[in-house]
């Protein structure tokens, strides 16, 4: 039996449309659900007061600080490593088996579940190197987790810089490093920043990798070696141990708003980047 192509076209159109609607609906539902349950708990005090009584009362200030410090640490470690690797892969070596192996390794790193990173960080940083449950262990673990993203986005950004700029720079007698710092990096900067912002989003939401490495102390961290709790870990513990569902949803709402904000910023940066080169 042959279906009339016009009918087929209609059916497929409707099908694809409904798939899209489902996708968007799920997203909207999750966000609306969390915000509806969580926002009533969120007020100014919730943001600026420390948790009281294991989080049953008070706010989430120390976990916001913990999240920011851990993420900042991870970015500070991963950015130079990632951008450096990207510069090496694109500018300092020819394409060959070695670059393919490095790139393949980075891709594999991106596919490892975050709880494995947590376990690795626990064994290496917490116990073997004796950093303990600390900001340091947590940041380093997160850094390895986001490294592939930073490498890949930086590489793409660097590759999109027109090759002619490199040729001209060399023809004027510049060294490779001068060429990289004066021509390539400034042009690639928006793309690199996009990758970093994306990684910030991932770090903020990460739970498994930090609960094993940064611990779950509720105090504001005093040094790199203090244990600290991030918002997502806080949410996990509040919900899991039934301490306070109200505050758990409040934390989740703050987390979701933060991540939405970061994604919107990324979108804006990418948009600017694309406009610049088209």
């Amino acid at each position, binding site marked *: 039996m042959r279906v009339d192509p016009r009918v087929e076209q209609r059916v497929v159109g409707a099908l694809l449309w409904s798939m899209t609607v489902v996708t968007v609906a799920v997203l909207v539902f999750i966000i609306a659900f969390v915000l509806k349950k969580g926002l009533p708990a969120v007020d100014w005090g919730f943001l600026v007061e420390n948790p009281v009584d294991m989080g049953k009362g008070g706010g989430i200030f120390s976990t916001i600080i913990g999240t920011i410090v851990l993420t900042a640490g991870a970015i500070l470690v991963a950015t130079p490593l990632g951008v450096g690797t990207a510069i090496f892969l694109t500018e300092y070596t*020819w394409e060959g088996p070695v670059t393919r192996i490095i790139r393949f390794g980075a891709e594999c790193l991106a596919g490892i579940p975050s709880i494995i990173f947590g376990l690795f960080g626990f064994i290496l940083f917490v116990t073997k190197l004796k950093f303990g449950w600390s900001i340091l262990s947590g940041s380093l673990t997160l850094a390895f987790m986001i490294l592939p993203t930073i490498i890949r986005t930086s590489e793409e950004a660097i590759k999109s810089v027109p090759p002619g700029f490199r040729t001209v720079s060399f023809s004027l007698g*510049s060294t490779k490093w001068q060429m990289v710092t004066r021509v390539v990096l400034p042009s690639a900067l928006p793309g690199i920043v996009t990758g970093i912002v994306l990684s910030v989003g991932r770090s903020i939401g990460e739970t498994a990798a930090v609960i094993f490495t940064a611990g779950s102390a509720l105090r504001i961290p005093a040094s790199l070696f203090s244990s600290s709790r991030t918002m997502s870990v806080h949410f996990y513990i509040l919900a899991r141990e039934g301490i306070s569902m109200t505050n758990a949803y409040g934390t989740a709402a703050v987390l979701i708003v933060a991540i939405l904000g970061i994604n919107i910023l990324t979108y804006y940066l990418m948009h600017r980047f694309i406009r610049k080169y088209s």
Partner: protein
Amino acid sequence: MGIIEVRDLCFYYGSFQALDRIGLDIEKNRITALIGPSGCGKTTFLRSLNRMTDMIENVRVTGRVIIDGEDIYRPGADLLALRKKVGMVFQRPNPFPLSVYDNVVYGLRVHGLRDKRRLEEKLVRSLESVHLWEELKDRLDANALTLSGEQQQRLCIARLVAVEPEIVLMDEPCSALDLAATANIEDLMAELKKRYTIVIVTHNMQQAARVSDFTGYFLLGELVEIGATHQIFTTPRDPRTEDYITGRFG
């Protein structure tokens, strides 16, 4: 004896031989044009004169290129100094996406000049020598990509002369420009040859005949013939050159 002496230069991309035993002398303060059909090796030859070919993977060079008495292919040759001395103008105008000012002083900064006043002096002199100063003196902050094609190509030449090279290599510098702009750039070349030695690769035989003092004809990686331009275009010695310039081939 020329400012550039090329002896037995062979050039390989992997196993493909792009240049076969090239030998020629290029004279100071003259314009030497290199002509020939696509793929004849003239651009490869041009780029081998400041070792821009080093940027390509898997190339091999034998023979000698002597500039100012030094073989630029000797081990340990100073590539930065070489490229400061032997600059290049490309087919497409390719200013950096920076301001006019930053474009012109790029090479100077790369070579370590920091002093603001001296940078500005050289900027003015470079832009004057390509007749852009009057047009652009109030727009030094403008992004160079907003200039017209001809202005961009002049700017690229200004960026090059700012570092005071001795030799200027031009790789079809007018192929992306219209007729009027081409005529202007050709006039500029005639002025520049008072101070620089110019080697130009061109597809356009009329252009070679108009601007150059010497012309070399490349075919399949070989230098068929080189001589005074009027001689090449009126009484070529090699029948292959005659076929090309009379349009029977190429």
